[in-house]
């Protein structure tokens, strides 16, 4: 056999394959059938037939709908059969878009099957030509528990993610390029493609929208940085105190702080939120204690509200860091501390020169993941202030403590500006992706995942 070659790929299989390999680009599974894998080949063929039946019966319409997003608006139309004007149902752009996305996903699945069939056929041919054993169908099924176990165990997750995460996501991403706002609500109205207009109004225009976007983005960054680092250092210091020599009942102290972790966040946030209200218990008490003469607007004045959410987040977040850091602290070699102490280093110097550099080195990926998590920390803001205090400077609904995510949620839940929400979602993605890329470059354990094994 002179047709064996190294780098086998999608193209070379076609250019250098035999007639069956070539034909199996059109008729899936032909090569499998030719080289002894009849059942497998027929299955591929069946899937192909199914897809094309789908495509020519409904698929074409779905794809066309995806381009037009509906042509007939709901309204009064003349019914010729009855000879009267009547209300006629129009196209529902939302359903058209959604089914169009489903058609896209089905097509992607088919392309995957098609590619898999080609490579599977090529493998069968390769094994056959070189005198290797060609698996029959039963053997293929059996291999699912062994060398092909990834098909078995990943099947459910992949299908689940495809239907319940991937499809909705594609739908919403496409939404960012439409005019699906509160004035174009199906089924009464149609919406249409608007290319990058949403991004332009959000980022560049001098309208209220971009005057809302940039301050909200700024606060999101300030919040993320403060929330992350306050909890990080707070938790680290707390862990160091609890783990230091001479503290008895370590478990008791740890438990006191862990209790806040065990309570579902929405409960503790809601409770603290009611405590911080104008007539909440905090305001009652500080007036009783003579700390202030009048109620403090903890959640209703911009600066107070911003400081309050950071502090409450500190209350919630410190125990998590404390637990995590406790584990790492114990891994720092004790000799380092001993020699430092012999050299006469003060506790502060020891922290600055030994503990902190070590912690920072180990926890950088965690820290950046945490930063991204805090940019998107929905519950801390939503349950505590609901984004408030509200302001007239912002686009309707947004408040002074709103993060991009909470604003996104409000745009979908309250004002139905889905296109804006989707645009913000994409921008959040870009921010997260940037930070993740930085992590990738910084973190050795991510680059070299085999290192530990």
């Amino acid at each position, binding site marked *: 056999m002179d047709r064996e070659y190294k780098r086998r790929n999608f193209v070379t299989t076609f250019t250098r394959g035999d007639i069956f390999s070539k034909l199996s680009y059109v008729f899936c599974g032909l090569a499998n059938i030719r080289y002894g894998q009849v059942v497998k080949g027929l299955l591929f063929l069946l899937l192909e037939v199914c897809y094309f039946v789908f495509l020519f019966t409904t698929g074409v319409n779905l794809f066309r709908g995806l381009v037009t997003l509906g042509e007939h608006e709901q309204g009064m139309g003349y019914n010729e059969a009855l000879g009267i004007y009547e209300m006629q149902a129009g196209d529902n752009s939302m359903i058209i878009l959604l089914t169009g996305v489903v058609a896209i996903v089905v097509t992607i699945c088919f392309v995957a099957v098609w590619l898999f069939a080609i490579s599977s056929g090529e493998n069968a041919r390769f094994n056959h030509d070189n005198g290797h054993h060609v698996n029959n169908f039963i053997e293929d099924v059996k291999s699912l528990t062994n060398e092909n176990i990834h098909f078995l165990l990943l099947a459910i*997750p992949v299908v*689940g993610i495809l239907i319940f*995460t991937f499809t*909705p996501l594609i739908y919403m991403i496409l939404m960012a390029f439409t005019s699906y706002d509160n004035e174009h609500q199906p089924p009464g109205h149609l919406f249409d493609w608007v290319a990058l207009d949403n991004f332009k109004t959000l980022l560049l225009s001098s309208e209220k929208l971009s005057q809302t976007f940039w301050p909200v983005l700024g606060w999101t960054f300030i919040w993320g940085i403060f929330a992350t680092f306050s909890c990080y250092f707070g938790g680290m210091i707390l862990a160091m105190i609890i783990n*230091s020599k001479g503290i008895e009942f370590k478990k008791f102290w740890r438990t006191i702080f862990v209790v806040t972790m065990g309570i579902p966040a929405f409960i503790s946030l809601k409770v603290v939120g009611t405590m911080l209200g104008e007539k909440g218990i905090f305001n*009652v008490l500080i007036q009783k*204690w003579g700390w202030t003469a009048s109620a403090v607007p903890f959640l209703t004045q911009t600066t107070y509200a911003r400081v309050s959410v950071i502090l409450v987040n500190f209350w919630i977040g410190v125990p*998590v860091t404390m637990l995590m850091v406790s584990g790492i602290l114990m891994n720092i070699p004790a000799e380092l501390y001993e020699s430092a102490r012999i050299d006469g280093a003060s506790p502060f110097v020891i922290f600055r020169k030994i503990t902190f550099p070590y912690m920072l080195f180990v926890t950088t990926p965690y820290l950046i993941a945490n930063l991204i998590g805090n940019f998107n920390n929905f519950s801390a803001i939503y349950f505590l202030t609901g984004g408030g205090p509200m302001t007239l400077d912002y686009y309707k609904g947004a408040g002074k403590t709103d993060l991009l995510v909470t604003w996104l949620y409000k745009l979908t839940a309250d004002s139905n500006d889905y296109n804006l929400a989707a645009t913000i979602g994409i921008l959040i993605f870009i921010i997260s992706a940037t930070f993740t890329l930085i992590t990738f470059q910084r973190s050795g354990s991510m680059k070299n995942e085999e290192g530990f*094994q």
Partner: protein
Amino acid sequence: MNNKTVIGLKTEYLLKAFVAVVLSFISLLIPFTSKEAGGKNMISTSIALLSADKTAAVSFFLYLAVVLTVASLILGLVSYFRTGVKIAKAWMFVQIFATFFWTTLLFALKLILEEGGIEDNFLLKSAGIGFWIGLITVYCSLVYIMKLAEVNVGYIVLTILGVMWMFPILWILLTALRAEQGYYVGYFFPKHLTLKNFYDLFHNSAVPFGKWWVNTMIVAVCGCVLNTLIVLGTAFILSRTRFSGRKQFMNILMIIGMFPGFMSMVALYNILKGLGLNQSIGALIVVGAAGAAMGYHITKGYFDTIPKAIDEAAIIDGASRLQIFTRITIPLSKSIIVYQVLGTFLGAWSDYIFPRLLFGDRQSSYTVAVGLFWMTDFRRIDSYYTQFAAGAVVIAVPIVILFIWLQRFYVEGLSGSVKG
């Protein structure tokens, strides 16, 4: 004198402690009340209060602060000249109580002065300089005495932080037990205690809390089983096997994960509606399980640390990959399984946004998170606040117990997450 060494004491702090105690004694003699009240010092204020007709019950905080500061000075004098471990310990305990009562003055001073008829409309910021100097110096004294007695100063920080951390939790407990209904009450400790809130929670026709609890339990238990199995399977494949497209698969999951989850919720709702699953608990379970694989990282990180040699040995012995997964990897992963189960369980109780969207106004399908939130709507909060608190306690207590019990595993999982 300063060169003296005593085993069990760090005598270099003796002088500092002594000076601080003397300063705090001196602060008793400088103006304590505000200028409007004549700027009396703390000792004369106490004497005035003792001879007053009517005083607040908490006035004894003030007396004790004065007495204990003086006692601390005496003990300081004694231990300065006859340094010893026992006397230093006694000194420390006296100073602990002195500091405690000084601190309580921060909260009780207004009451003491107003009830005692010394001042009207007292505000803490108008208190005399003596109060602030005293407060700072008693803390300094305590720190130095503890250092002298070789006791870890961290206790002070832990105590203060512990009280702050427990404060909201205590409040919710007390609210759950409060007989007086309503959100706005002007006091911390309830006037009457009762268990009626808990009874009402389960016997209220408008609030089917029992049903919500059962719903959430179903979601939580199903989620624990399904999600954990899926996560374990995914993590096993991505960690222990190599196949073409593995890296790409992980990258795709990562990219999907970087989009905010709320973004696709509306579309998801429409898909579920199309499948006829909306407003049912089943949808919550299915969606939870479908997305579970996205959170494989921590488990994969854990599996990465199990030596590959074990797998190789098993393969030589003729085990299939599935057998390695079920017979070797899973039994070695107890802590990460507990971590996953605990995380899923906790998530089911606190997940709010998606259930809220999914169930709409169908109350009978609510989970407790949605239900409890419904109770705290501003139109209802006044009539339901104590029941809301009772509901919070009913949910939180089992979870907290579970959490404290399984803390060790949680820490292991959490430390695993750091590795990245």
